[in-house]
């Protein structure tokens, strides 16, 4: 009995000692893999910095969704940046509040988006200080919208030296419904012309063109079937666009990696009715935040990247954003043969655009 307890005590001591071993924090290197938490009020923001911090540039990735776990995204290397962007620069990933990491008690505040912008600001400032690096934000989809909110809120006081919006829609507020469907109609029209010029699915695309000619505006209809035009648009996109550019699905091995080797407790994430509640709150908040009317307040350096076949954030909408922002230094690239995750659809083209931009 005494021997057993003694042995257990030795094991406990050794394990605790091993768990506390670590190199000096935030040392620069060409292949770092740093995990830590940034304290922001009542929340501990989990952060992973991976890649080449010696480059002096850190891309801060802002996850889309809302509601996806960014650390898992990095853990399984979903975007496949380990052998591209992370060789040239460092990429920082962080979990948005409550979306993955589940420790202790914290509040989402009265306005979730504002709280998340504050977290984003805390991570940005910390990375800049700890690594003495230039920070470049890279927001995908919803993450791009959150990045725009940060840019508007911070103005000239923003820490990053540049911003990259990838497939990032702005017409999420209800008053912009008309504008959103204007972009979507233009998207379908332009896609039809492109596909017809390439001789792909000619018969179906000619039907789309006829339908678009018959409906110059996509809007709600009076009567029982008020969403008829929107539903028809969705059907065409599902059948003719999305099938070629579906979202990349993680493999069984990647799911297992998340379940058994995740950097947090995946049980909380999987039982995450809470995540759904927060995502719904954010989407409701977005419906009353007129982001489109504030785009002119954006003055920072901005690169917009989109997929030509992105039905969630059509390139027509990205061109609108490009025209609206006041940035003196702005660029836009629309990648052909790419959908809403242009970085997985055309990884080489995406990598070249980002690399060239960051090396300017």
């Amino acid at each position, binding site marked *: *009995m005494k021997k*057993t*307890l003694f*042995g*257990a005590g030795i*094991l*406990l001591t050794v*394990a*605790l000692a091993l*768990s506390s071993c*670590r190199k000096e*924090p*935030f040392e620069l290197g060409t292949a770092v893999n740093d*995990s*830590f*938490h*940034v*304290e922001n009020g009542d929340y*501990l923001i*989990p952060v992973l910095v991976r890649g080449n911090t010696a480059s002096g540039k850190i891309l801060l990735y802002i996850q889309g969704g809302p509601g996806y776990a960014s650390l898992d995204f990095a853990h399984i290397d979903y975007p496949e940046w380990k052998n591209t962007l992370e060789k040239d620069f460092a990429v920082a990933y962080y979990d948005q509040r*409550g979306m993955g*990491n*589940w*420790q*202790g*008690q*914290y*509040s989402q505040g009265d306005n979730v988006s504002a709280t998340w912008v504050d977290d984003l600001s*805390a991570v940005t*400032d*910390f990375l800049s*200080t*700890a690594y003495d690096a230039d920070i470049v934000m890279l927001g995908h989809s919803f993450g791009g919208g959150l990045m725009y909110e940060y840019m508007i809120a911070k103005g000239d006081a923003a820490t990053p030296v540049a911003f990259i919006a990838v497939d990032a829609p702005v017409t999420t507020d209800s008053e912009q419904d008309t504008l959103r469907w204007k972009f979507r109609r233009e998207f379908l029209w332009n896609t039809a012309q492109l596909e017809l010029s390439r001789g792909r699915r000619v018969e179906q695309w000619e039907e789309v063109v006829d339908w678009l000619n018959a409906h110059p505006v996509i809007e709600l209809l009076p009567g029982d079937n008020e969403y008829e035009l929107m539903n028809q648009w969705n059907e065409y996109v599902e059948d003719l666009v999305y099938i070629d550019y579906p979202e990349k699905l993680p493999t069984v091995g990647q799911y297992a990696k998340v*379940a*058994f*080797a*995740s*950097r*947090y*407790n*995946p*049980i*909380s994430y999987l*039982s995450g009715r*809470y995540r759904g*509640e927060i995502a719904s709150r954010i989407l409701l908040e977005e419906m009353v935040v007129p982001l489109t009317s504030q785009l002119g307040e954006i003055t920072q350096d901005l690169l917009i990247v989109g997929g030509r076949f992105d039905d969630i954030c059509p390139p027509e909408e990205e061109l609108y954003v490009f025209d609206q922002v006041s940035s003196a230094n702005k660029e836009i690239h629309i990648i052909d043969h790419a959908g809403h995750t242009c970085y997985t659809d055309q990884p080489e083209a995406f990598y070249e655009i980002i690399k060239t931009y960051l090396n300017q």
Partner: protein
Amino acid sequence: MRTFILSLLLSVPFLSTAQQLRPATVDVAYFGETATHPGLKVAATYPLKTWTKTKDKRGTEITLEKRIELSPNLGFYHHCHFQTGLFSIPELAYTRLKPSGRYLSIGLGAGYLGTIVPEVYRLHGSEWERSFTTIHYAAASASLTLGKDRNTVGTGKLNTYFKPQCIYAFPGTPRGVWYLALEVGVRFQTLGGHKN
């Protein structure tokens, strides 16, 4: 931390060397949070009530031993980059032992879980500083144990067991935090204790 100390103090009498409080068995187990994040757990078992039931199975009379047991325990796990958990979740279990030495237990526990969050930093002006961060939870557990006496014929002093369990730690956001854990261990019979 006060809750943890209180749990330990509550557990200490059971682990004392007083002859009448000597545990019937002592468990030493690998404790894996989500199975793969390693830890260690030590528990002592005190039978509160023991009775037998004889029943006829295909013409053969078999005697089942049944017990209500109390198991104070102490353990930890280390989940790299996430947290190190220290816990004491005393468990009340109902055990059913077959003559073959196989047994099954269903247990419910209540106690304390404290977590140490690694690598926490805060920005203080233009400097960063490290912060030692711990989070304290009350914890409830439910478990199922499948065990087998490995030495029934001989001295009867050792068996092995497999124990999946879930733990609910609270308060947390939004209400609490769920954990799944797997315990695989050996159970030692102490001198004067029962068979398993």
